[in-house]
């Protein structure tokens, strides 16, 4: 089993998955903020994406930019098979940890 993912990494990976073909930096940032219900620093999201890509959990490709971006390119991300596996492993581990735990969660 690969190293388990942290909460933020899971949030970023799940956002990439949920956004599908529209997963680029800005949309991922907004999705992560909506999921975690707090403002998130862009630097944290991009640093996480870079780390996840280096680990082979996501892949990326460049596409042409739009006028509002000053013509700057967009980098689109996609969940890699290894990323799906890591999410599955993490979910199973969390489920196993919480199994039979009677703690009242507030």
């Amino acid at each position: 089993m690969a190293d388990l993912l942290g909460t933020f990494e899971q949030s970023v990976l799940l956002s990439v998955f949920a956004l599908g073909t529209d997963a680029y930096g800005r949309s991922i940032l907004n999705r992560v903020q909506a999921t975690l219900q707090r403002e998130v620093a862009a630097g944290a999201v991009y640093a996480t994406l870079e780390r996840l890509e280096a680990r082979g959990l996501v892949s990326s490709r460049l596409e042409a930019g739009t006028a509002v971006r000053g013509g700057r390119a967009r980098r689109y991300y996609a969940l890699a098979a290894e990323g799906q596996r890591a999410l599955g492993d993490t979910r199973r581990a969390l489920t196993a940890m919480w199994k039979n735990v009677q703690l009242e969660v507030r």
Partner: protein
Amino acid sequence: MSTAGLTPPRWAEVLLERLLPDDARETVAGDLREEFVEGVLPQRGLVGARLWYVRQVLSFVPWFAKEGSGMSKILLVVSMFTLACGCWLAVMEMVLRHPGFGERIGVALAIALICAATILARMLHVGFRGERWLWAGAAVLIALGGQAFLHNARSAHFEGFVFVISLVLVLQGVLMLATLGRADSGSRRSLDAANSLQ
């Protein structure tokens, strides 16, 4: 809505581009510009949106700091520490005004200036081999650190913070010579590698 003039602070955009590696510079700056114009500006107004932008740019500092070789990372941290120390010492001297404070303010500001130049050089990814100022700056730091260390060691009142700062100054001088002597492209991944995934 016309967005003419409704842009992020230019200095912040330049800083962001300096903080980012080659392959992320364009895409990240584009994402933030897009979010600034379409997402934040309509909600928070120009001042609020610009403050948001500056906060986002600063959030890239840790990412920037971890790039480069181990020595250059240490140099960056050490330079930031001594820059803060130099500014703090200058302010304290200005407030307390003990005899000879003018000279000490000059020394503190010189240290701060060298540190700021070092950080800037690291951010601009430039090398300074053969540049006289680099050797002079490093020599000044090593000399000041060494002098402060010896003075403190011989003094009847040993002061811990002088001990730490003096060692850090010497370390910074050595690291400046070791790391700024060569150019650092700052590039992490090539665009070609990213494009090949298409």
